[in-house]
């Protein structure tokens, strides 16, 4: 099972959509609120070179935004 972390903010609707999509496909996700966790926010910005959420970290591979195709590929989610 791949380790999946979701970097998000409290009232970000796109983050919620992404979270729900992952849950529907049986993916276990650790949610991190980067508005509270400065270390995680720093890590996210450094890895993605961007300041925007949602961001997924799938076993060290960072995906910015709800890039469904890419996320499905990495996680092996069947369409």
């Amino acid at each position, binding site marked *: 099972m791949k380790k999946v972390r979701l970097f998000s903010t409290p009232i*970000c609707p796109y983050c919620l*959509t992404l979270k729900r999509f992952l849950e529907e496909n049986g993916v276990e996700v650790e949610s991190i609120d980067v508005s509270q966790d400065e270390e995680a926010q720093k890590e996210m910005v450094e890895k993605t070179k961007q300041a925007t*959420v*949602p961001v997924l970290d799938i076993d060290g591979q960072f995906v910015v935004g709800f890039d*469904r195709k890419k996320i499905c590929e990495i996680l092996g989610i069947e369409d």
Partner: protein
Amino acid sequence: MVYDLIIIGGGPAGVTAGIYSARQRIKALLLTKSFGGQMVHKAVEIENYPGFEKISSIELIDRFEKHLRSKDIEIKNEKVVGLDKKEFFEVVTDEGKTFRSRAVIVATGAEPKRLNIKGEKEFLGKGLSYCPTCDGPLFSKKRVVIIGGGEAGFETALFLRKYASAVTILERGEKVFASQEIQERAKKEGINIITGATVKEIKGKDFVEEVLYNDESIAAEGVFVQIGHAPDASFAKNLVDVNDKGEIIVDPETYETRTKGLFATGDINNGRMKQIVIACGEGARAALFAYNHLIKNYELDSIN
């Protein structure tokens, strides 16, 4: 496989159309990249949706999505990039897939308007954002500029005030167009408002560092663009007529476009009032007329 109905869009109009269609026991598919439409960008609570004296946009979106998912309707998170009609409607997505149907409801609403200036594309996600509810909290103790002095600009400014160390609104016009009430609140919160400011360029290195307007510059780490929303019906251009605003022209009773079986509902059509509750009502109406179209023209397996 041919669907009875494909609904394009996951805002208030699309979701309501989906709920109504599921109740008709037809084979329906809803295509949307995400849920909520323009509610996604709303940085203050919604106070005019019946049943809720006050509700945050994310909570209302969440309720809409859950309600829809409780019904018998297929949902796919894909963006529609093309629409045409041969024997059936053919809906093409950004993943290169084609879905066919007997009727289509377009409910794609409106997208945030772009500035179309230098640096806007380059710094998108690198300090520049169209989504304050998403990215606003990332600018804690930083300086932000909001471009646009309408109601949404002020709402965004007040939301960002909770995080940012300095908040400035740049408005192109000689005065702002937000309500008196919100202007007073902004004043009290120490939000800086500059009118007559035409933004020329967003500058920085890896991230935004300054905003150039007129002949001046203002230092900022974050820029939020709030200059309104505009519809984009270009993916359907072969089948619909649009007005000078780019809105799809529909029959005001049925929301049918010039193509039979193709409906446009919510902010994408030429209706003049743009409200969440109106979009919901329109979505319901389009779904009912789409059903009428289906039973008049087809013998549907799913309809007894």
